[in-house]
């Protein structure tokens, strides 16, 4: 037990900040993010035997977190997957003259405005610097889906940040 606890402490706990970061980006508030992180840590602790030390602990944790989040949304009747069926994404924002807004606040607001299904892919790519393959594994979808989600997510952000949203 002690050895396992030590390994967990060494491998998993250092990811707490990153885990909270992604939870916060997904839920949009600190309270839900903390709940999600606690639950993720608990699951991770129980499943720690299945984790291979030295592999990507962060990706492993994100996978657990994503599954929890998906289950939670499904229970609340807000399946994030349904969004994908709607259409093939927003039109790409046309060429525009002025530069995109780049203030933290505006970007944060634009990010929060994204449907979660796009947001998770964009956050994993642009904030966590995951590769498409890593994102695909984390979200449990094909790489092509990852690409299209990022594409559509960024297109929505582009529209929001170019001041043409309204």
């Amino acid at each position: 037990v002690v050895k396992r606890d030590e390994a967990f402490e060494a491998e998993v706990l250092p990811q707490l900040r990153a885990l909270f970061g992604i939870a916060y980006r997904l839920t949009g508030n600190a309270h839900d993010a903390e709940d999600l992180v606690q639950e993720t840590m608990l699951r991770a602790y129980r499943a720690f035997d299945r984790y291979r030390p030295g592999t990507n602990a962060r990706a492993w944790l994100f996978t657990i977190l994503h599954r929890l989040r998906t289950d939670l949304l499904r229970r609340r009747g807000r399946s994030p997957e349904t969004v994908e069926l709607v259409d093939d994404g927003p039109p790409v924002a046309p060429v525009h003259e002025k530069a995109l807004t780049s203030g933290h606040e505006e970007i944060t607001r634009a990010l929060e405005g994204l449907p979660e299904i796009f947001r998770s892919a964009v956050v994993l790519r642009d904030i966590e610097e995951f590769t498409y393959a890593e994102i695909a594994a984390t979200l449990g979808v094909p790489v092509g889906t990852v690409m299209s989600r990022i594409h559509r997510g960024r297109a929505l952000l582009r529209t929001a940040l170019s001041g043409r949203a309204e």
Partner: protein
Amino acid sequence: VICDSLRVTALVDDALDAEDRAEVEGHLAGCEACRAQAADERQIRAGLRALPAPELPFGLEQRVRRQLRGRGRLSGAVRLVLPLAAILVVALWVRGYAPFVAWELSRDHEHCFGMERLPAEVWGSEPEIVTGWFGERGERLPLLPPSVGRLALVGGRFCWLPDASRLAHLYYASDEGQVSVFAVPHAVRMRDEYTTSAGGNAVTLMRLGRTVVGVVGENEEEVNVFVSRLRTNVAGLFIDPPFVQ
């Protein structure tokens, strides 16, 4: 050339192989819209990357640790208790296992008679004196014969079993040999009688009333005589402790 905005995204993410990459870059050189898309996506990437990480709520790490420690302790306790419970079950099972009891009595017999001086706590050739001494200490013994053949009662003591219960041990001795009589303080899984040889001694366990009495000696014949004597003469008869209810 048709714009492929999806591949422009892949280009920004450096997710294209060399061939696709060259193709998309070639397209970008001549397509303002795709160039703008790539530039905007790069800017969005940079903007997102530059976002300050959300502040960790105060005490979150402690709360997570506490929560995990709670689980850890629980599972730790379960991990500790289960083997102990298993050991206890096995120990209880072994305690009542006739061959083990026989072995244990044989060991006690060897131990006491193997000493330079018999470690008796009560000395006496009169059964009343010896059973009286045990009776004062709450031990109910069968009515003992003062002698069987050449074996005569010498005394007795309490020995200790591995589970820390006490075991009345009575000594019978002659010039040639010794026999021990024990009153086993717990149940033994056996029929009316169990005879074996354990640790180089002949051992017989027998039920006298509700008590299991063990007879141990080097000489099987002597033990058999002793057993039949106990059976025929004192079967079922116990002396109640005179001073203890």
